[in-house]
């Protein structure tokens, strides 16, 4: 009884301390700052239809850095990862299914439009 309690306690302490090194935070921070100014700079160059894709790709990359490192999802439990993944999936459902309609509507030449 006491042995199992002791194990639970030490397991407990081990589980709790996912201390991320400061160097990781600083690395993520400088990457985020650099990408902010890169995306601002790229926006002044005319890439035609590609501008929005470049801007959104950079934003998605930056957001992933924040979620994985600042929000500790990389070090989180599998259940946390599953919940975050479900949320993203739901958001993609919202955006993608509506945009399929919006994008393709003009292809058909709907009368009255």
């Amino acid at each position: 009884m006491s042995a199992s309690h002791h194990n639970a306690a030490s397991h407990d302490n081990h589980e709790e301390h996912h201390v991320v090194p400061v160097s990781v935070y600083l690395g993520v921070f400088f990457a985020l700052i650099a990408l902010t100014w890169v995306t601002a700079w790229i926006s002044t160059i005319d890439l035609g239809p590609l501008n929005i894709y470049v801007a959104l790709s950079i934003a998605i990359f930056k957001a992933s850095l924040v979620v994985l490192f600042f929000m500790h999802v990389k070090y989180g439990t599998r259940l946390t990862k599953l919940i975050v993944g479900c949320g993203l999936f739901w958001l993609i459902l919202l955006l993608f299914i509506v945009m399929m309609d919006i994008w393709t509507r003009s292809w058909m030449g709907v009368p009255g439009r």
Partner: protein
Amino acid sequence: MANEPAVALHEAGHTGAHAHPGYGEVRHHFESYAQQKDASTIGMWVFLLTELMFFGGMFMAYFVYRQWYPDAFASASLKTNLWLGAFNTTVLICSSLTMAMAVHSASTGKRLLLVGFLIATLVLGSAFLGVKAYEYHDKWVHHEIPGEHYECEGCVDAGHTSLFFALYFGMTGLHASHMIIGAFILLVLIWQSYKGKFSAKWYTPIELFGLYWHFVDIVWIFLFPLLYLIDRSGKGGIH
């Protein structure tokens, strides 16, 4: 029968220590600090997902109207101030770093560093809101707030540019209101940290508030390119 005294002793010890679990102790329905913290973290993430869908609806509206009126969105977007936007994004990312460092200080039990980083986060968050207020005022002066006196000087498809500004104020306003709420929560956390309510063993409110603050940062990471950077080359190449 042989087990009974042990069970009784365990129960007594248990209820003795946790009859009224105080602030920061393991509640009786949890096995351990780790399990309690996991449950809190998951609860916070579920809340953030509702926030994601809340903001998601506005992003959805943005994408639909941008698809329908690309020229109006491109020219209205030029009315925003690129430098202030980039500066504010930088300020917000700095506040995310100080918040991450606050959580780090809490997890290593450094009380004064925790208080310092939380204050830094509050200062940076307030600076962001200050710049935002300056930008709103600029829009007010130039009649770029949708309504009776709205005008968009030199805009293409000016009739639809008010849609851009409606979304601009809706999205940045919702974002700013999240930051204002965050600033008030920060005040409470700073006070509690100063009073020594948190320890390396238990700092769940700091950790969960960090998740909230970073989430608000992520929303801005998307708002910045979508509102400020549509067509900075000014050639209308967005179709």
